[in-house]
């Protein structure tokens, strides 16, 4: 996933923290490439709401999509691969229990846990 946006040190720091790499810098705009989706809000970026919305509007995502909900910007990669996982009844019920407790969908939770675990193992 490639992200292009007007220079912003706070967003750049956040992206570098989740293993994004800077691939271009033309003075005004910067481009980063990375694997993971992310969520940032107004407070994390230390911006006013208007500035935040301006940045969110100017941000371009290649190979993914962006969503702005209130003061939160969500960037997710395009997900076109399907992974089928076989689970036992107990495993399925346990997963469902945790998903309910966390208020997340089953697929979303599974993907997040798997990717987080791999990223951690790889020191990303």
């Amino acid at each position, binding site marked *: 996933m490639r992200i292009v946006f007007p220079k912003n040190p706070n967003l750049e720091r956040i992206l570098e923290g989740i293993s994004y790499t800077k691939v271009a810098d033309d003075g005004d705009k910067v481009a980063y490439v990375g694997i993971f989706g992310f969520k940032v809000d107004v407070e994390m970026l230390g911006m006013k709401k208007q500035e935040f919305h301006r940045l969110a509007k100017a941000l371009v995502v290649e190979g993914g999509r962006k969503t702005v909900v209130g003061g939160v910007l969500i960037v997710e990669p395009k997900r076109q691969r399907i992974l*089928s996982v076989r689970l036992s009844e107990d495993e399925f019920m346990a997963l469902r229990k945790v998903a309910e407790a966390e208020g997340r969908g089953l697929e979303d939770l599974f993907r997040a846990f798997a*990717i987080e675990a791999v990223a951690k193992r790889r020191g990303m």
Partner: protein
Amino acid sequence: MPYIVKIPKDPRLEEALQYRLQKIGEGDDFSLYEGVDVVVIPLNIGWSEAFKLFRKIKVDGGFKRLPRMEYVDGRDVPAERPAIVICPKRDRILTVRLSDDEYELLKEDAYSENYTVSAWARELVMRPVWEYLQQEKFKEAMKKAAEDIEAVCGGCVYLDGMSCKNPNIPKQYKFEVQTGRRDKCEYKVVG
């Protein structure tokens, strides 16, 4: 549903099983165990004896394997010692959408551990899930235990990691939380 393992009465096998599966019953010449997760039972016997023993083991709601090979230093080599693997039946199918990069990352990691992508994803996800559920059970048991101690001894009970602290607990009361298996979390207040 947990799987049920019926094994012939054999002290070597029972010794290997006691911490891995839960015993739920026994007959004159067999014992019944119950489990929910994959268990590997290393055997301290020769291969021919292991094959004989393996044939006598029956698994209901799961299946058994006696792998001849093991994965060491990035390659498959003949296993030095026999180990029986018992797995639950996996009838549920969950489909997960991933991006190309996420899939490649997972695939690379899975192959480095000699797993298929889906088996590795399941392994990575189920570990924290079981841990989370065990912690929740433990917290609940601790909370209930704290209420019981408060009822017996009065005052406020402080939960501190693995123990309950209450300066008002008289010395004759002993409090124990027993846990260890993910599906078993008990406590007792004994005088």
